[in-house]
């Protein structure tokens, strides 16, 4: 009883120690305010992981928020779930004179809501500060203490927390058991004022005077630019179970046993059904195709995040019964079906994102946010996206391609790279026959074939309602003021992964009347190339995320009484970013043929190349608008 009393008193005093009615900003270098919306004045994060069963984190951050954009970026929050808690959380807001305006003392003063709104169920919740500033700049002092039983996850240290944000001082301390050392992976430390101190039981990272980085279009993903450090333990706990992460091999083995070991049962009648389904198929590929189709017809994606911190799949039996599940459940279910046929397949963890994010090969730890299935086929691996009811067999698309992923094989974990689409594979071929009338009205039959990542942007078109299909083409060719489309047909070849569109289009507002006749831009169907903005003094490398090839062949037939006055010169541009060939040809007096081929090359280039890249795209854009002058002759 007395003990309890003393404890309360201590808490009270401790609370007051940190609650102050006024705050005085330290002197900070003026350049931190240059092109910055907010300054992290001080940050101290103390992580204690000396006990394998518990990770506790004490955090103190002081932000100087300079404007509304900075305010929007300053999200102060902590998470909790069934296996973690927020011991204390508070935020004190001061005006520019240092007088306290608002004090959020405890958890109930914060907003408490589910972390992921789209989930059917998730136990993860987020507690965040809500504040409406009445003036700028303002200062906020944020303090929290959290505790979790999952030592598998250690938050990264990121002393610069976003674009247009600077840091005066940030310190990260992590204490550990010398027998279970914390490993760390420094990322992008070069060029930043960062020091690392290491003792047998503690790591201390300090960053000082980091000026704000500016967002620049066509840059690599921010994790490739911003300094940060990732942490992991060799021996950790996850939902009460111990795990080991000394090599991908052993870590993967342990993951497979813990996550998949007891969720792989399916009813006998299902086994019988899939056996019958593939009875006539000879090859593993043909069988796997049948199984994938069976899965796609049966299930749908529903997110349910329960079990081992959202890492454990729902049992295959449940998926079999309910016909729904999340990426883990559906991938595991597919694997179990294939296992029943004696076909090997590997549960594979990755970061699914439109940006390329790798699983760090040299840093064994829990990474990733998505799961797909890999089926070995000789030296190749066929990848299956099990959450989609429409994706063709073996097609993983833009959020999963070209990255390092963790594949769980019977021999253990293995880092492999997913399919990288070459420019040649992401092609779009447009062929059109255009008839120009003497009035300037044009009618055209267009057919277009799309492959690879360009297939991905269009293959769902047949699922749209007719009115939405029309809207798609209106947006696609929005530079044509008024047009009618008809006879639209699609052919989605899922086997070969080719999507074909065919349609007719009619417009009387495309050609521009001039004194002698009309102006006609022969590149009718591909004018929407985006020109990168001017970025003087660019700092970041240029990244072209993926390559592609667009080919357009347009045959233009002129009527009696309309002839071409000038035929533009053919042009061939070759750069390290890609090539562009455009040819204008007068075959007969009635037939003009236009050919365009643009190839964009994927790659990362030094910052100074950005100007040249922009120049290339501008030139293409200009040549894309090159025109024929058609003259009326009676």
């Amino acid at each position, binding site marked *: 009883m007395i003990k309890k009393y003393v404890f309360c008193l201590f808490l009270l005093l401790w609370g007051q120690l940190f609650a102050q009615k006024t705050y005085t900003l330290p002197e900070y270098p003026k350049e931190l305010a240059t092109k910055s919306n907010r300054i992290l004045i001080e940050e101290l994060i103390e992580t204690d992981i000396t006990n394998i069963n518990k990770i506790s984190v004490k955090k103190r951050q002081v932000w100087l928020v300079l404007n509304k954009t900075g305010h929007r970026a300053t999200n102060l929050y902590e998470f909790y779930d069934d296996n973690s808690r927020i011991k204390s959380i508070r935020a004190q807001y001061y005006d520019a004179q240092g007088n306290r305006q608002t004090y959020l003392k405890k958890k109930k003063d914060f907003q408490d809501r*589910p972390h992921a709104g789209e989930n*059917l169920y998730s136990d993860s919740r987020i507690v965040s500060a809500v504040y409406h500033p009445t003036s700028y700049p303002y200062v906020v002092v944020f303090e929290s203490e959290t505790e979790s039983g999952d030592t598998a996850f250690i938050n990264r240290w990121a002393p610069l927390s976003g674009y247009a944000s600077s840091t005066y001082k940030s310190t990260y301390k992590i204490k550990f058991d010398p027998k279970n050392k914390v490993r760390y992976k420094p990322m992008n430390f070069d060029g930043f004022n960062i020091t690392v101190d290491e003792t047998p039981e503690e790591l201390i990272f300090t960053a000082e005077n980091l000026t704000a980085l500016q967002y620049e279009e066509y840059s690599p993903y921010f994790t490739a630019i911003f300094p940060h450090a990732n942490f992991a333990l060799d021996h950790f706990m996850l939902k009460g179970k111990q795990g080991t992460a000394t090599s991908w091999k052993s870590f993967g083995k342990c993951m497979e046993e813990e996550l998949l070991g007891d969720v792989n049962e399916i009813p006998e009648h299902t086994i019988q059904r899939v056996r019958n389904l593939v009875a006539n198929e000879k090859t593993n590929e043909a069988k796997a195709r049948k199984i994938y189709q069976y899965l796609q017809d049966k299930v749908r994606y529903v997110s349910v995040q329960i079990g081992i911190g959202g890492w454990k799949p729902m049992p295959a039996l449940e998926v079999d019964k309910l*016909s*729904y599940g999340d990426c883990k459940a559906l991938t595991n279910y597919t694997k179990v079906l294939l296992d029943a046929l004696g076909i090997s397949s590997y549960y594979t963890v990755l970061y699914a994102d439109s940006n390329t994010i790798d699983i760090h090969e040299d840093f064994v730890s829990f990474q990733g946010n998505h799961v797909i299935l890999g089926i070995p086929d000789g030296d190749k691996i066929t990848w299956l996206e099990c959450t989609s009811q429409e994706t063709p067999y073996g097609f993983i698309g833009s959020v999963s391609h070209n990255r390092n992923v963790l594949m769980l094989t019977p021999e253990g974990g293995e880092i492999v790279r997913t399919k990288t689409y070459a420019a040649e594979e992401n092609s779009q071929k447009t062929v059109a026959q255009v008839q120009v009338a003497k009035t300037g009205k044009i009618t055209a039959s267009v057919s277009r074939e799309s492959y690879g990542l360009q297939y991905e942007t269009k293959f769902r078109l047949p699922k749209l*309602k007719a009115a939405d299909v029309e809207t798609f083409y209106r947006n696609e060719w*929005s530079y044509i003021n008024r047009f009618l489309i008809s006879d639209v047909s699609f052919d989605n070849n899922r086997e070969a992964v080719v999507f074909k569109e065919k349609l007719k289009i009619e417009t009387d507002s495309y050609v521009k009347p*001039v004194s002698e006749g009309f102006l006609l831009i022969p590149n009718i169907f591909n004018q929407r190339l985006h020109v990168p*903005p001017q970025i003087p003094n660019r700092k970041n490398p240029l990244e072209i995320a993926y390559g592609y090839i667009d080919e357009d062949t347009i045959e233009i037939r002129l009527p009696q009484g309309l002839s071409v006055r*000038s035929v533009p010169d053919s042009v061939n541009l070759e750069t390290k970013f890609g090539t562009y060939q455009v040819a204008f040809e007068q075959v007969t007096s009635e037939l003009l043929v236009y050919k365009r081929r643009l190839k964009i090359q994927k790659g990362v280039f030094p910052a100074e190349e950005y100007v040249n890249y922009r120049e290339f795209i501008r030139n293409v854009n200009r040549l894309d608008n090159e025109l024929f002058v058609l003259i009326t002759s009676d």
Partner: protein
Amino acid sequence: MKFLLFSVFLFCLVQVSSAQSLIHPFGEPTVQELNMSEYKDDPEAAGVVLYERGHYQVELIENRIYLTYEIHRKTKVLDASRFKGADVAVSYYHGTGRDSDEKITNFRAITHNGSRKLPVNEKELYHVKDDTYWANARFSFPDVKDGSVLEYSYKLISPYFQNLNGWAFVNYYPTLYSELTTELPGNFIYSKTLYGDKKLDVEDVSIKKSCFHLPGYRVPGDCEVGVYAMKNIPAIEEEDYMLSPYNYSPYLKFELIQAMDMLGSRHYFTSSWKTLDDYFNADSNLGRELTNSGYMKKQLPNEILNISDKTERAKAVYYFIQKHMHWNQHRRLMTHTDIKNAFTKKTGHSSEINLILINALEAAGLDAKAMLIATRNSVMPSKLHTVYTGFDYLIARLDIDGKIYHLDATSKNTSFGLLPIYCLNGDGRVLDFKKGSFWEPVTPYNRNVHYVNVNLKANENGQFSGTAEEIYAGYIDLYMRVQDGNLIMEELLKRKQNQNEQLNLTNFEIENRNNPDQPYKEKYDFTFIEKNINKGDTYYISTFTFQPYINSNPFVNNYRKYPIDLYFPFVNTYTVNFDLGNQYEVLKVPENKTISLPNNDGILNVKYEVSDNSVVMRMNFRLNNYHYPTEAYAALQEFFTQLMEAQSGVLELRKIN
């Protein structure tokens, strides 16, 4: 008077027809429902609501009165790959105490695949608390495939019997049969409004004797039993530039007129506008907060109070409050309001800020009143009945010698007299406690302008360069200020440059960025880069060297279902002056044209003046009306098509030397 109204209501009740509620037993879809595989009236629909029934009842549960909502719904899946209704969420109020919480009970759900039934267990109904006041009950139907019938029912128990939910007979998918039944004690009297122009197929109101027993009362009460049903209701659709689709869809709304409590005293809510006005004036938090002009007088600087011109004084008060107050982003109406506290803290919800404004205007000797409105995403309040629950926002209404202004001080970017876009939604109710409240249209600010003046000159090489000035007013000005977002000039230049790829911009300047009383103004110099394409001696130059306000046709679809609402009227005035510098002769200019919409709703005028050494293009585009009936769609579409045509005009020049 009050008694009379009650009698009229009773009289209505006597008109009883014999129509019956259609009750489907749970868990037993018909063979026809199970076998259905297409819906001819809407062949593109991925699903069809076969049957839905709501039963609303006042019930006594453990000695407390509750409103209960029982819902039963059966949906047919026609195309599982496009069907979106298999994951269901029901939201309910989940406040701080047990007594104020709503509860979901009697949950049942089954997927029917032919005769095979797959139930959802009660434990698979997940309750997720959203924030402080709301929670979601969520579940997913298992094994959903083409042909499945998804059936569920639940009962929601609510202590909030003043607010009887309405009933939408319309769904995201077409609906074959939708029914609402109500069983409400005679001491709860509601008015009913049916939105949309589709008629009820069943409307049956009758009296059920002795249906409601209150403990301690010997005589049981009678109930009003209502049955309302509709058949074959098309799916709800949304189009661009429209008010809430529920204004045009079958939706039955209830409004509590009066209630008798357990002690037998009658409480009037909306029996007449007079009762409601009295309530607002005397009883409500809102009415009390309108009497703080004395307090506000002490807060306003004398320089403002001493301005002699009324309009100038009103403006000064408006900008003072706009600057002082910081909106917490909450739109609130009937919740707790404390304007003294809000003024001291400089932050508050929408009603607090606008009540501060009203009191401040009153303190400055001006005639200001509170005005209730429904915001744009809400259904417009019905004018057939006295309504209380249809409103969700409060603005200030100022009368300066007969000139009316509608004001809202929540945004930092609005100029005096300009309401935020979300406030533009039909009529509002002005609370005049002396003469009685009245309806008044919320008319959008009407001076909305994009004005551009460009001067170009050719140098001795024939290269054009020029200067441009773009001025914005009204809502177009507001849009620019929101876009501006106080970003650094470097960022704004990048954006402007990106919109005008054929120009190289220099000396970019913006005026009045932080002064909403003066127009946002951009100025820049430029040189042409590429698009003046030359073919031999002939040059083709686009006359629109800047991005016009309307740069794509807003009406591209060939079909329109709902009336069109373009928010506000506007004017675009563009002048481009080419000084040819004795370098060019003019071969052709685009045609002059004048096109009008019927009823003087709009005019487009483009005129090219060619003189010795110059070409001047003047375009005036004026949209006088902003709300159009569905039938006006074709004319509007053509009008905007002509505008796009005019804005793609090409000037044809020949180099002289």
